Structures are given as C-alpha cells and as structure tokens.
C-alpha cells in the first residue's frame, strides 16, 4: 500500500489542497466581499479532495470534506453569511483533514472520529434559510426518483456525496458508466494492470467508486474481475475500446449505471430540484475552470525526493573522484590529460553542481505558508491584533535546511507575538497603531539565505533582561554592568531564560530560544537579534544555501589532515613565536588590534607528536559571531570543495568534529567544527 503510486499522489495532492484551503479561507476571512471568486477556489479544493478520498476509500476523510463542502457551497451561494465562528469550525475541519492525511502518509488508515466536526458543520448548515436545509434531501430524492431497485450489487451502498456527484454529472451531460473489467487468467501482475486501467479511466473521466475497493485492488485482493463506476463524457463503447488497449485484459463491458437505492422519503422535496440543478451548474463551471488552470501550469514534474537524494549521492561520488583525478593529473603532468581533467572539473564543478543543487532547492514558501494560520490563531488566543506580512516567500533553500527550519521559525514567531507585540490597549496608550505588525522576510545574499522576523512591539527591555538573567544565574551582577546592548539581546537565547512575567503556553518557559539557536547553529547558520525598546525587535537568521557540498581549507597537523569550513575562516597567517603572548595562562596573539586566543589543534585532537618547537606558527583565524580564535596547525594544504559526510551512528558525536569527507587520494579527513571550538 505505501508504495502505491496512487497513494503517494493522493497524499501529495491532498496536502496541496489542504494548504490551498488554509490560504484561501484566510483570504476569505479578510475580504468576505470577494466571496464569489475566493469561495469558488475554496469550494473546488474541497470538492477535489472529497472526490479523491472517496476514490481511495478513505471514508472519514471523504465524509468530513463532504460536510465542509456543503457549508462552503452555502456560503458561496450567499445562503450563509460567513463569520469568524464558521471560519473557526472550517479551520478545525481542515486541521483534522490534515491530521488524517498525515496519518495516511505514515501508513495509517486515515480513520478518525469526525463525528463532532460533522455535527458542527451540520449545525452551521442548518442555520441556513429553511429552503436550503432541504437541499440534501433533494439530492436523495432525485436519485430515488429514478431508482429501479435492481443493480447496485457491485457498489453496495453509495454514499450521499457519491450519489451527489453522479447526480450532478448526469445533469451536466456526463455519462455515469458501470465498467466491468475482466483480466486475462494468465495475468501475473494484476495490480499493475489495474493501475494501467485506472490510468486510462482517469484520463477520460473520474472514477467514483470501485468494487472491490481501490485498496483491495492494489493488494491484488480480487479474482479476475472488478467493477468501476466512472463519470465520463465518452460513450460506453469508447470507454471499452480504450480499456482494451491495456494488455492482458480479457473482457470489458461498459453500461450506463443506474442508481438503485431503497426508496425513502419520496415526498415533498421535488420542488427543490430546480435549485439543485442551479447549484450543479455552478459547480461544474467551477470544475471546468480549475481544469483549465491546471493545464496552463503544467511544465513541471513531480520527482520523489529519494531519487534526488540518490542523484546527489552519485554526484558526491563524482566530486570525490574528480578530486582524485585532479591529483593524479597534477602528478603526471601530461598536458592532454590535464586539459581534459580541467574541462571535466569545469563542467562537473560548475554547471552540473549548480543544476543538481538547484533541483534540491525549495521555496521557503513551504515553511512560510503555515504561518498565516498560526498567527491568526495566536492573535485570537492572545487577544492581540496582528498583521502578518510575508516578503520573499519565493526565496529558495536546500530541502534539508527547509525541513529543519520550520520549528525554529514557529518558535520565533510565537515569541514575537507573545512577548513582542503588546495588547491593543497598551499599543494605543503608547501612541501606536492598535494592529501590531509582524514582518517575515527572506532573501538571498551571497552564499547565504537570510530570514528575518521583525515586529513593531515592545522590543527587549534591557533592565528586565539583565535582572532576569541575574536572578536566573545566567550572569553575575558584575558582568551585567559591562554588557553591551548586543550582548544583552543575546542573553535571551541562553538556556533557562524567560522574560515574560507570566509563563504562557504560547512561547513556553524560555527553554525554547536556546533550542532555536542550537538548531540554527547545527545547520551552519547564525542568529542575531537587534532591538530598540518600545520600537520592536528583529531576529535575523543567516543560513547556508546548501549543506552537503562545502568549501574548506585543508590543513595538516602532524600526519593528519583536517578540513576547516571556509565560511568560518577570516584569514590565515604565519606568525613568529615571539608574537605569541600569554594572558591568564592562555596563549593569545594580537591580531589587527584585537586579542585573539590561540587553540592548538594538536592538543584538542590529541595528535601524537614528538617535537613542538617551531620558530613559526601557521594560524587559521576563525570566527563565530563576533568572537574570534586562532587555530594552530602545522601547515596549510589548500582550498577544496568537499562533500560532507556523517561519521555514522556508531561513533556518534565527537567533540569539535562535525563530520568527515573523502579526499582525492581516498583517505578520510575530519571536518573541524569551529563553532564548538570557540566558546
């Protein structure tokens, strides 16, 4: 099941539709007057979602979407006035849908108790004008009218929405066909044939229901025959011919499907049929529109991330071999060979690398797009008014970074809303606009991506931070007097810190900001805070574009080679022994007017060595934020592009080593984690 092509597509598309629901409903809340256009979008997403989940046999999912769709439909047709309560319920429904889809993605079956929400939605629906409340029964009625009491043997009881779809299509000139497909007895891969048949069917129409269910079909849980209920514009004969093009199909019959359901309340509702037809008309128009938009946007393909990762791995191998070739050709000094190798390096190092890395780039939008919802909810919970602005959502970042950056951002936004932006009353008294402003901004700069979160709230209160820090023993009182504003701001990211007088469940107990900082640093990024009291704060995150291929300086310590990431190096220097000073038993040097402590890699890495008395020291000056340090090494080998590899689970975390890489000669060099060295 998990491997099923359908399922993956279903999950991906469902996620997209759920996201689009989220976005559009937010827009709707802000501009209820644009109901006509926005409502259409929302309705289409809900409708597609419903159809897909019904086809896949996820009953609860389909059921909930169906109810939601009813409410949305009423809203769209001006039978229901949209208000914040309705939006809340719809959001809850969307949340639950998302949960169910995620459950399915994790291999679950998407079951969930949707009873409460269905009731809530039903209640909203029932508030409509009396005439509307009959709408659903109307659907049932019209089906009942043509019921002939015989054939639905293969499809059991059709759900209400399945019936509704059939009904709609009927009235719009589509054929509801019952297709019986019989596979050849010798067919080995039944599931594959079924898949091919479904692919054909999906090209010509929409599959409403299958018997056995799609799930069972995929698990080859059937004999040779299966039945499909199809909505299409093609005639039965055309459908038949198209399916027969799939090999190993023995027999296809296609006939017009007639609904047969026990006749229930036949009375009273026929009058509503006209109105029903009107609705159907609109729905269909909506659907047609969405089909056109899809066709226009279609110059992309969906690729499984595993394949991209596979490609990346192979490319990494290539980079390693390239390094090796360069080394060999350098030794051989054969002009022709050198030329070829140089050419190859240019291609694989430049263009190919760019293309492959770019393929893994995803717009930060993927992370950003969940924030509007979150901000809306939070501002409600906190009774604050907040206007969230997002700039640069199209900025791209490596997928691995995207996956990690979500939680830290959530935390920072929660923090800004909870601690930063004041309540409307306070804002008013302070002469600010009642509505607080939160700006989320992403942009490229050099080899980095910056993400900034700024608010126009209270900013960081220096005195408060310092007194908190002292009472929480983060710093001592003497230290406090000498702190620069910048240092004070950094304090709020140290562990065991919380400036909110009351601990709230929004941004927690202050254990979070240091976690945020650690996560970002583990991604090779940095975070800085600027703040003006009363004016607001700015959290700025700097992230590397990619994590897997980095530029390093290779250095030698005795016989061992280490790689120092170029991004953390300021410069290299060779200094005379006499320039080394002692300060408080620590070796330091005076580097461009700054006192820089020296770190001897030999000691840190316990490199076995015999003598140590060189006249000159080779030093790599590294930095972390505004702190600097000098790494003492034996010699510099040179700059190189390397592929970052993990040391593996068994060795786990080794102090001051962030990973390993394979050099041109096939040996492994360890990558120095400069961030842990400076502390």
């Amino acid at each position, binding site marked *: 099941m998990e491997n099923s092509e359908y399922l993956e597509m279903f999950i991906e598309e469902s996620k997209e539709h759920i996201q689009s629901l989220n976005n559009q409903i937010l827009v709707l809340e802000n501009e209820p007057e644009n109901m006509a256009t926005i409502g259409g979008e929302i309705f289409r997403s809900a409708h597609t979602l419903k159809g897909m989940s019904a086809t896949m046999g996820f009953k609860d999912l389909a059921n909930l979407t169906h109810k939601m769709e009813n409410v949305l439909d009423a809203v769209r047709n001006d039978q229901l006035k949209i208000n914040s309560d309705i939006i809340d319920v719809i959001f809850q429904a969307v949340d639950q849908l998302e949960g169910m889809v995620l459950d399915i993605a994790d291999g679950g079956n998407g079951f969930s108790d949707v009873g409460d929400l269905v009731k809530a939605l039903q209640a909203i629906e029932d508030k409509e004008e009396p005439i509307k409340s009959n709408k659903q029964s109307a659907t049932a009625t019209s089906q009942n009218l043509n019921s002939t009491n015989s054939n639905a043997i293969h499809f059991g009881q059709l759900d209400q929405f399945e019936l509704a779809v059939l009904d709609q299509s009927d009235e719009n000139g589509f054929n509801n066909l019952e297709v019986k497909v019989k596979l050849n007895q010798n067919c080995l891969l039944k599931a594959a044939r079924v898949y091919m048949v479904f692919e054909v069917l999906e090209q010509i129409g929409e599959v409403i229901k299958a018997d056995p269910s799609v799930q069972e079909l995929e698990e080859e849980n059937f004999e040779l025959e299966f039945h499909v209920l199809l909505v299409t514009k093609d005639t039965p004969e055309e459908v038949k011919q198209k399916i027969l093009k799939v090999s190993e199909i023995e027999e296809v019959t296609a006939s017009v499907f007639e609904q047969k359901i026990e006749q229930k309340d036949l009375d009273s509702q026929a009058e509503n049929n006209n109105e029903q037809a009107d609705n159907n008309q609109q729905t269909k128009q909506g659907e047609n529109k969405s089909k056109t938009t899809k066709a226009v946007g279609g110059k992309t393909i969906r690729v499984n991330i595993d394949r991209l990762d596979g490609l990346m791995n192979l490319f*990494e*191998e290539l980079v*390693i071999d390239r390094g090796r070739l360069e080394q060999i050709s350098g030794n051989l000094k054969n002009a022709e060979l050198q030329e070829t190798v140089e050419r190859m390096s240019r291609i694989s190092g430049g263009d190919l690398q760019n293309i492959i890395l770019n393929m893994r780039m995803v717009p930060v939008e993927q992370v950003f797009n969940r924030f509007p919802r979150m901000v809306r909810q939070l501002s409600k919970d906190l009774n604050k008014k907040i206007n969230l602005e997002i700039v640069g959502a199209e900025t791209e970042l490596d997928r691995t970074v995207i996956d990690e950056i979500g939680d830290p951002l959530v935390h920072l936004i929660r923090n800004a809303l909870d601690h930063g932006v004041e309540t409307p009353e306070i804002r008013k008294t302070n002469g600010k606009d009642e509505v607080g402003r939160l700006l989320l901004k992403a942009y490229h700069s050099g080899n980095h991506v910056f993400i900034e979160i700024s608010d126009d709230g209270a900013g960081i209160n220096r005195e408060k931070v310092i007194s908190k820090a002292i009472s929480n023993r983060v710093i001592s009182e003497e230290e406090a007097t000498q702190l620069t504003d910048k240092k004070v701001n950094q304090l709020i990211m140290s562990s065991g810190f919380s400036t909110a007088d009351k601990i709230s469940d929004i941004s927690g107990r202050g254990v979070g900001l240091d976690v945020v900082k650690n996560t970002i640093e583990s991604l090779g990024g940095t975070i800085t805070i600027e703040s003006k009291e009363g004016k607001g704060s700015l959290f700025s995150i700097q992230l590397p574009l990619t994590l897997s291929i980095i530029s390093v300086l290779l250095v030698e310590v005795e016989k*061992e080679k280490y790689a120092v990431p170029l991004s953390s190096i300021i410069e290299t220097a060779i200094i005379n022994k006499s320039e080394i000073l002692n300060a408080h038993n620590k070796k330091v040097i005076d580097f461009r007017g700054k006192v820089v402590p020296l770190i001897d890699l030999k000691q*840190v*890495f*316990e*490199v076995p060595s015999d003598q140590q008395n060189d006249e000159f020291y080779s030093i790599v000056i590294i930095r972390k934020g505004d702190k600097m340090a000098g790494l003492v090494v034996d010699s510099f080998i040179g700059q190189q592009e390397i592929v970052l*590899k*993990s*040391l*593996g*689970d*068994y*060795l786990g975390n*080794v*102090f*001051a*080593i962030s990973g*390993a890489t*394979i050099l041109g000669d*096939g*040996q*492994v*060099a*360890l990558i120095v984690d400069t961030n842990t060295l400076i502390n």
Partner: protein
Amino acid sequence: MEEVMSNHKSIIIELNKEEYAIPVEVVGAIERMQHITRVPQTASFVNGGVLNLRGVITPIIDLRSRFNMPRIDPTDSTRIIIINLEKYDVGFIVDAAYDVLDIPEESIEPAPEVIGTVDVDYIAGVAKVGKRLIMLLQLDRVLSQESITAKGIEG
C-alpha cells in the same frame, strides 16, 4: 543468542595467537589493511578511526585494543573484517583472517568463567573443533559502547 550459535558457519580470525569465530552472515567483506583516519577521543579505548570503504565512511575498531591485548604494528596478514549490522557497518582490525569453518553445535560450550580476571561478556561460547579451540564472539557485546567506555576508564 541461541539463533546465532545454532548457525555454525563462521569466519575464523586470529588475535594474539588465539582463534575467534564471527558468524559468516554478518561479515560483509574482508579487506587488507589500509590507511585509517584516527578519530580523536575514540582513540583511547578502541584505537579506532574511520575508513573510506567504497565511498562510505566506516568506523573501525582495533580488536586487540578492545580486548586489552598488546598492540602490534600491522603486518602483511593483518585484515579488516567489515561487519554489516542493521543500522551501520563497522570494521574490526584483526591479526589474520582464515577459513570459513563449520562449527558443530555439540562442540560449543558456554564461556568458561575462569578464562582470566577480565570480565569476558563478549565471548558467547567456546568450541573445540579437532585440536583447535575457538572462541565465539558475541558481537553486540563487543560493540557495546558502555562496556568499552567502562574498560577505557578502568585502563
């Protein structure tokens, strides 16, 4: 452990003139000695490092150090046995690797408790095959970080 023991096919390795058996199904490859990059801080107790094994960084453990035997310089017969475990691969440096041997189950006896003063939880049993005495390694104990660390502190 019963399952592992009931499987008799084992690769026989030599360490400090004694023979040990590793179940053949976990052995991924036997490599000649090659350059091993020392990894700081792991070195003290396993004389360990990492190796580039066809593009995969593989941790290497010197079994002599692990078993508290005197260290020797690699010779021509020194081999690296690559063990495939569920989550990761790991390599053992051994003095030599010999044949694959069928060890009859009835020849296996529990590890003698008198073997020495050291706690030998990494020996699953001892087998007598002809005149050879072969010790069966219990790999999860050999690799267990806690017991290594404990040893490291003791030593």
